[in-house]
């Protein structure tokens, strides 16, 4: 294998940073022009703010362009053409694929893609899978209920594009999926971190050792931040005996970031297909220095049916202060998505990110894979209940384990917790996005 064999496109992935910036400006201008001339929504948004595409002369001008957000995408759906609204930038007859967001934060957003957009989705995923070592010798299992959610659809088509043999595990239940992976000696699969752990747990219950009895060499995760949380990543890798890779994407955006096989602790941004900006949550200023958390504002350069330009994703990320030994010049974000701006909430006056709790819980080998956090009000005081699973094997050391857990939680989050210990397997299991963090204070306040 020569050096070029690690890249899907070595020309773009190793382009010197200065030239990458030139490419980004050129592509940004192109998508803004396209949206302005083809989408009534974008034309109005820009005209109302006094912006014309010709005003975009240098990189810094990008920051003057109005942002978009999920609320806008929902509102626009109330206008024709049904069901997307006038953000649509192509004739409705050119739309070939419908997807929608999960609706966890409100009304689902409908996503229109043309045939070209769909090729683009799988092109973005090809960068991801190739960087993670997928080749035409892989037999890839997709344990995903192929449906209205984009999830692993594009992963499926990208794996085909790379030349892998793809096994769609759509309507099979978890046990049948494990048996099929074993029967066909599948070498890789893609799922949410939660479901990857659930698959290992179920396999073990069936008497199948995921490491000895299956043939998995790599796993690609998406949909939740788990594969970038060191304790969760380790738990998955220990359960499956192989490397687990993270990738980040979203229905309205595309698949914009990926871990490569070097795994320096962060993910590459696909700078040739996306522009990622990080905005300070307090000041609204764009942050370029590494290590500073902020909200991601993202543009997909080449998605034409329903353009995504300066979209405020609410994902909290930070630039890495390191580069990757793989040689890619694409910038890196440190530790993946740290949280969501609307998930980070004040509890007892302290900012709490649910991912910090996961990092602690999953670092305790004595505890099960699942947990749940419930924040509520006890009188005027916030209360945090953490439900965990523990095997009866550890009953004798239970108090010691709980004391250590409390210490670590306080150290990481500056907060105290009520802890409820449940038997292994008693908390809910999720196949798609997990809902482990429940803030009942909003509901209580709304009565």
């Amino acid at each position: 294998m020569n050096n070029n064999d690690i890249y899907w496109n070595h020309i773009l992935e190793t382009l010197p940073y200065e030239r990458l910036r030139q490419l980004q400006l050129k592509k940004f201008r192109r998508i803004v022009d396209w949206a302005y001339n083809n989408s009534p929504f974008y034309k109005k948004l820009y005209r109302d703010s006094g912006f014309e595409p010709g005003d975009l002369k240098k990189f810094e001008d990008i920051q003057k362009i109005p942002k978009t957000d999920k609320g806008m995408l929902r509102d626009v759906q109330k206008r024709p053409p049904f069901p997307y609204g006038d953000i649509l930038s192509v004739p409705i007859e050119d739309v070939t694929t419908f997807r929608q967001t999960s609706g966890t934060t409100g009304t689902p957003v409908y996503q229109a893609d043309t045939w070209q957009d769909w090729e683009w989705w799988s092109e973005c995923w090809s960068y991801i899978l190739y960087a993670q070592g997928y080749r035409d010798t892989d037999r890839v299992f997709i344990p995903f209920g192929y449906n209205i959610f984009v999830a692993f659809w594009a992963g499926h088509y990208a794996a085909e594009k790379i030349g892998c043999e793809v096994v769609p595990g759509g309507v099979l239940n978890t046990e049948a999926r494990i048996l099929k992976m074993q029967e066909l000696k599948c070498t890789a699969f893609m799922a949410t971190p939660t479901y990857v752990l659930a698959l290992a747990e179920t396999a073990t219950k069936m008497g199948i050792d995921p490491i000895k009895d299956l043939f998995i060499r790599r796993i690609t995760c998406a949909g939740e931040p788990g594969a970038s949380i060191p304790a969760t990543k380790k738990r998955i890798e220990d359960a499956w005996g192989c490397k687990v890779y993270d990738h980040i994407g979203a229905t309205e955006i595309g698949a914009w970031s990926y871990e490569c096989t070097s795994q320096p602790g962060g993910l590459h941004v696909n700078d040739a297909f996306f522009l990622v900006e990080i905005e300070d949550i307090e000041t609204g200023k764009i942050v370029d220095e590494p290590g500073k958390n902020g909200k991601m504002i993202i543009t997909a350069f080449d998605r034409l049916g329903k353009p995504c330009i300066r979209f405020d994703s609410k994902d909290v990320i930070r630039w890495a202060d390191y580069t990757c030994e793989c040689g890619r010049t694409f910038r890196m974000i440190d530790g993946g998505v740290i949280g969501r701006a609307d998930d980070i909430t004040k509890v007892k006056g302290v900012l709490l990110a649910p991912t910090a709790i996961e990092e602690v819980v999953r670092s305790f080998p004595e505890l099960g894979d699942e947990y749940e956090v419930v924040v509520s009000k006890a009188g005027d005081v916030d209360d945090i209940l953490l439900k965990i699973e523990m095997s009866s094997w550890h009953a004798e050391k239970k108090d010691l384990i709980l004391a250590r857990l409390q210490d670590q939680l306080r150290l990481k989050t500056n907060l105290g917790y009520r802890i409820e210990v449940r038997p292994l397997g008693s908390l809910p299991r999720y196949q798609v996005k997990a809902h482990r963090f429940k803030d009942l204070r909003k509901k209580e306040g709304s009565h």
Partner: protein
Amino acid sequence: MNDRFDVKELSRTIGDLRANAERLLKAGGEMEAIKRNVTKILANIRMLELNISDVADITNS
């Protein structure tokens, strides 16, 4: 590493592909079997343009 490929030449070849596909669409586009298959071919050509042609005119300056 990028010198192993003549990006400008690759870009010209991709341009020829697009011109041929568009010629085919113009000549036979009233036939559904041609129209729909050429549309798919053009989508794939677009991916080549994103991968190669877009960077062909980005200079070192």
